[in-house]
């Protein structure tokens, strides 16, 4: 198993686990306040849509794009997407942005569920159905995006799918066992780690994909081949650590002011 494959499996597992935790919180809140029938119907409908999206986009990416342009397009999207995660994680770690609180999200959702009207369509509680559907669809799209970009760029879709499936299974099992929001999941730490991995692989593949502009359109070669991934990852780790250190005093000041 190569570094690339290991990183791929770890990234998809962690990224999907975070997204599944958020989707689980939404479905749990709707299930408890609006009834399980509509919450599960919303979840199943969203999963059906996600399967269609995954099948179409996976087929289109694999069959319609040559390798180097695929690396460039997918790597760039992955990089920009990963940098979003890294940015939020740096701001949260330095105290400039509030940490994501799964319990608070759950409380807000259950309040919404309790205060919502009792509209019914097709025999389903409509609020419970729509909120569950939208929650699972949005979080699931993020998982699909990560799985497709990682899977196609690393030419190992089964590894990417397996990583995401294991992440989902772990969250689902823990959620069913505990029957409450998974608030103890260290979400910011995981998002930080995934942001670092997404940015690392995105940088690696986007730069390799620049080879599409060379004569012959052959992918660029990083010095050291795949081992360069470790160097890129180290660079992102050091830079992120320095950014958190630089920004931390500003975050502390804000919290002190708010506390006062």
């Amino acid at each position, binding site marked *: 198993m190569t570094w690339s494959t290991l990183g791929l499996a770890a990234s998809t597992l962690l990224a999907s686990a975070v997204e599944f935790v958020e989707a689980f919180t939404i479905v749990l809140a709707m299930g408890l306040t609006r009834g399980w029938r509509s919450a599960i119907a919303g979840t199943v409908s969203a999963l059906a849509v996600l399967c269609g999206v995954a099948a179409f986009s996976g087929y289109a990416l694999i069959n319609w794009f040559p390798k180097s342009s695929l690396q460039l397009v997918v790597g760039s999207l992955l990089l920009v997407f990963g940098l979003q995660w890294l*940015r939020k994680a740096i701001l949260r770690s330095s105290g*400039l942005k509030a940490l994501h609180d799964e319990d608070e999200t759950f409380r807000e959702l259950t309040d919404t569920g309790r205060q919502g009207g009792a509209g019914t369509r097709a025999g389903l509680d409509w609020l419970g159905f729509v909120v569950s559907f939208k929650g699972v669809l949005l979080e699931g799209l993020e998982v699909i995006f990560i799985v497709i970009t990682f899977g196609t760029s690393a030419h190992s879709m089964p590894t990417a799918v397996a990583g995401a499936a294991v992440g989902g299974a772990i969250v689902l099992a823990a959620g069913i066992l505990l029957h409450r929001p998974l608030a103890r999941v260290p979400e910011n730490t995981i998002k930080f780690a995934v942001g670092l991995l997404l940015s690392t692989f995105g940088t690696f593949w986007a730069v390799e994909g*620049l080879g599409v502009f060379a004569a012959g359109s052959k992918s660029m070669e990083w010095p050291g081949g795949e081992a360069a991934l470790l160097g890129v990852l180290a660079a992102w780790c050091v830079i992120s650590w320095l950014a958190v250190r630089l920004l931390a005093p500003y975050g502390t000041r804000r919290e002190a002011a708010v506390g006062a």
Partner: protein
Amino acid sequence: MRYVAGFFRFWWDFIVGDDWKIAAGVACVLTAGALLVAYSSLSDTVVTLLAGAGIVAVATTAIVRDALASRRPG
């Protein structure tokens, strides 16, 4: 028309997110890298290292500047 705009807004929010400057910086670096690949005789090693360093630099600058700017009063 509203649905088309909504569709593109969704994907913009989904991929680019809160800080468009990161995406713009990455696009600039990759464009510069593409020009180097197409019109210079630099080796793969030099281009990959330059492009990689450029991406790290523009993204870090965008994140730190945005964070610091948001902390300034007014």
